[in-house]
C-alpha cells in the first residue's frame, strides 16, 4: 500500500481520575427496583459512599440519592436510564441543588463538664438533643460539608456512636430532568473520556 499518504494527527483517549458523584434516581416503588439500580453500581465494584431511598412527591415512586467515587459515571447513568423501573436519572453538580444530611452522635462527657462540648455544638450548628447522665446526644442537619466539619470536631471528644444518613437532594426547578452532566465543559468534551495528542513514544509504536 502507499505508505506516503499523509494521516491526520492521531487521537488518544485517556481516562481522568475518579471523583465523587451524587446521583438522583426517581424510580417506581416496586420489589426489585432498588436491587436492579444498585446492582449496576455493584457490578463495577464501586463502593457506595451513601444511599438514601425514600418517598418522592409522587405516590408509588421513590427518590434514591446515591453517592459514589467513580470515573465513568456517565455510562452508569445511561444504564440506569435503561432500567424499566427507573423514571429519571440526574447527576447533581455543585451548587445546583439543596443538599442536606443528618448526623447523630453520642458523646461521653467525663466529670459532667459540658462547656467544651456545648461550644463545639454551637460552632458547628449541632443541637444537643438529650443529656442522660454523662452521655450527650447531638444532632445536626446541614449540607454535607458542615456535617463533615461537625464529625471532625466531635471526634475530639469521647465519641461513642456516630450515624450519618448520607445526603438527600432537591432541586427547585426541573427535579427529574433526564441525565445531565454537570461536568460538561470542564474538559475537552462532555464525555468522561477526553482526548489528547499522542506522546512521542506512543507515536513511535
Amino acid at each position, binding site marked *: *500500500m*502507499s505508505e506516503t*499518504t499523509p*494521516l*491526520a*494527527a*492521531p*487521537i*488518544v*483517549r*485517556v481516562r481522568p481520575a475518579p471523583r465523587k458523584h451524587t446521583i438522583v434516581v426517581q*424510580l*417506581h416503588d416496586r*420489589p*426489585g427496583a432498588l*436491587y*436492579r439500580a444498585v*446492582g*449496576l453500581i455493584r*457490578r463495577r465494584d464501586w463502593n457506595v459512599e451513601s444511599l438514601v431511598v425514600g418517598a418522592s412527591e409522587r405516590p408509588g415512586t421513590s427518590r434514591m440519592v446515591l453517592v459514589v467515587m467513580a470515573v465513568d459515571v*456517565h*455510562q452508569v447513568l*445511561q*444504564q440506569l*436510564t*435503561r*432500567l*424499566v*423501573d*427507573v*423514571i429519571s436519572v440526574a447527576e447533581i453538580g455543585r451548587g445546583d441543588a439543596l443538599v442536606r444530611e443528618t448526623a447523630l452522635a453520642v458523646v461521653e462527657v467525663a466529670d459532667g463538664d459540658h462547656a467544651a462540648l456545648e461550644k463545639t455544638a454551637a460552632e458547628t450548628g449541632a443541637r444537643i438533643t438529650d443529656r442522660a447522665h454523662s452521655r450527650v446526644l447531638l444532632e445536626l442537619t446541614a449540607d454535607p460539608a458542615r456535617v463533615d466539619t461537625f464529625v471532625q470536631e466531635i471526634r475530639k471528644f469521647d465519641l461513642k456512636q456516630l450515624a450519618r444518613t448520607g445526603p438527600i437532594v432537591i432541586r427547585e426547578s426541573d427535579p427529574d430532568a433526564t441525565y445531565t452532566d454537570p461536568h460538561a465543559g470542564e474538559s475537552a*468534551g462532555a*464525555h468522561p*473520556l*477526553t*482526548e489528547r495528542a*499522542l506522546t512521542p513514544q506512543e507515536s513511535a*509504536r
Partner: protein
Amino acid sequence: MSTTQSPQTTSPSPSDASAQSAQAQSASRTGAQILCEAFIRQGVDTIFGIPGGAIMPFYHALPQYADQLHHVLCRHEQGAGHAAEGYARATGRVGVCVGTSGPGATNLVTPIADAWMDSTPLVALTGQVGSALLGTDAFQETDIIGITVPITKHSYLVRNANDIPRVVAEAFYLAGTGRPGPVLIDVTKDAQQASVVPNWDVTLDLEGYTDHRVADIDPAPVQAAAELIAQAERPLLLVGNGIIQSGASAELIAFAEKTGIPVITTLHGLGAFPQDHPLSLGMPGMHGWVHVNRAIQRCDLLINIGSRFDDRVTGKAATFAPHAKIVHADVDPSEIGKLVPVTVGIVGDARATLRALFDAVPEPTGRNETLEKWIGEVHELRAKFEPRQAYRRRPDTPALQPHDVCALLNSARHEHGPSRIVTDVGQHQMWAAQLLDWRRPRSHLTSGGSGTMGFAVPAALGAAVACPDETIWVIVGDGGFQMTNQEIATMRQEGLTNVKIAIMNNGYLGMVRQWQQLFEGKLYSGTPLSGPDFAKLAEAYGVRGVTVETFDQAERAIDDAWNMPGIVVIDFRVEREANVFPIVPQGQSIGDMLVDPTTKAEHHEPAAAGATRR
C-alpha cells in the same frame, strides 16, 4: 373452558361461536391456563423446556393447548434456553424457554446471559415455590430473579394469577422491542394453580421504558454525520447485529452504494451485508482480516451502525481507529460513547437511521477520486493479506485441515438450497466466520458476546424447528459438542431431519490451546481432550455418524450429508494444532496482528521465526 355448549349443536353457527368465545372469555381458569393463553396471544407457537415440581401446574395445562402451543422437551434447561435463542435468532421472533424452580432455573442462567450479551429476544418462564414458602429455603427454591438481575432486561415474580395477562404482555413487549433481550417470568406454584377470570384488557405499565426503535431519528446528528461523510477521505462503515435485528440490509446496501463507502461486518453482522458485494471488506477485530483492521487504523471516518465496539472488535480501545472521527448509531443510547468517544451519536433503529442518512447525503456527481484512491489502498492490503482461498491443503501434511472443511462446506452450501449455519465457540467458530461467505441475514447464528460453548447443538435444534424447510448446519468443536450433544435426542424425538453436524475434532480445547501455544510457551494446561467415538455416539442416538480423516472423505461426507435426508454427525479429525490466524493478542492494538507463519509466502513478507508481527 366452556362447559355449557349446546348438546344439539354439532357445528356451531358463527353467532354460537362468538357466544362461546364470549363465555370462554369470562370463564375462570387456572393461572397455568392463563399463561398458555397469554403465550398464544403473543403469537408463540413453540416453547422449549423441561418440567419439574414448581412448574407442574403449567405442564398440566399444556396438553389442552397442544394444537397451538408445541412443547419441545429438551434434555437440559441450558439446551432449552439455547434452543429458544436459536429459534429467536433464526426468525427474529421472541423465543420462549421453560424450566422449574431451583436447578431448572439456574440451568437457564447461561442461555439468559447469552441472550443478554447478544441482544436476543427471549422470555424465560420459571416455576417458583409457593408464595408462602418464598425465602424459607424450601425444596428447589432459588432466588432466580436475584441471580439474573444483571443479565435480564427485566424480570417479574408473579404471585397472583390476575397479574399474568399484564406480565406476559409486558415481558414480550420488553423482550422484543428497543434493544431486544431476555425477560424472566418467575411464577409461584400457587399463582399457577389459582383460578381466576383473566382480564385480557391490560395496559402496559412501563412508564420508565422507551422503545428507541420507534422513536423518530433526530435530524441534527444525521446532518452532522452527512457533513462528516462529505469531508471524509477515508470513510468506513462498521455494521453489526443491529442491522440484522432491524432488518436493515436493503437500506445498508442502498446507503453503501450511494456513498461508495466500504462495509465491515462484525461477527454478529455477518450476513447483514452480502460478502460477495464489491464494497464488502469482511470481519474486523481479534480474528478479523489484516486489511480490515489496517483499514480501521487508517480511516478518517468510522460510521458504526448497530454494533457496540466490543473489545474483540476494538482490541485496545485507546488505540482503536486513531485517526478517525466516529459516528455511532445504536438503538440503545447507553452504548453511545461507552467504549469509544464519538463525534456524532445517533439514537434509533438501524433501518430508520440508514434511511435518514441516505436522504441526508447528496446524490453522487461523477467519480469520487478520493474515495477510489482509499478503496484502492484497502484492496491492495486485501490482496496482500487476505488468506481466503478455496482450498488450503498443504502438500507436506496428510492431516485434514479445518480450513479445508470450511471451504468444502462453503462451496457445497452455494450449490444446495437455503441453509443456516450455527457455530459454537472457539477456533471452529472463527474459521467458519472467516472462511464462509455470508450473504444473507440470520444465516449465521453463533454465541458472540458471551462466548458460550455448548450453544451450537441446542441452538440448531431451535433453528431447525423454526425453519423446517432449510438445512441447519452445525459447526462445533469436540469440546463444545461434548457439552450439549444430548439435544440430538431431542431432535430425534421431534422427528427433525434437517440438522447436519460437523465436528471439528482436534482433541483439544483448541482456542485455549492456541493461546497457550502462542503466548504461554506451549504449556497445554487443561486443554488436551479425549472423547467418545462420535460416529458411534451418533448411531446410539439413532442418527447417522461418519468419521472423516482425509480430504477426499471430507468431500464425500459433506456431499452425502446434503443429499441424504436425516440428521448426520460428521466427525472431522482435523489437524490437531491448526491455529486461527490472523490474531490480535488480547489487549493489543488491532493494528498489531500475528499472521500464520506457515503461509508467509502468500503474504510476500520476509520470513521470521514463529508467528510474524506486522
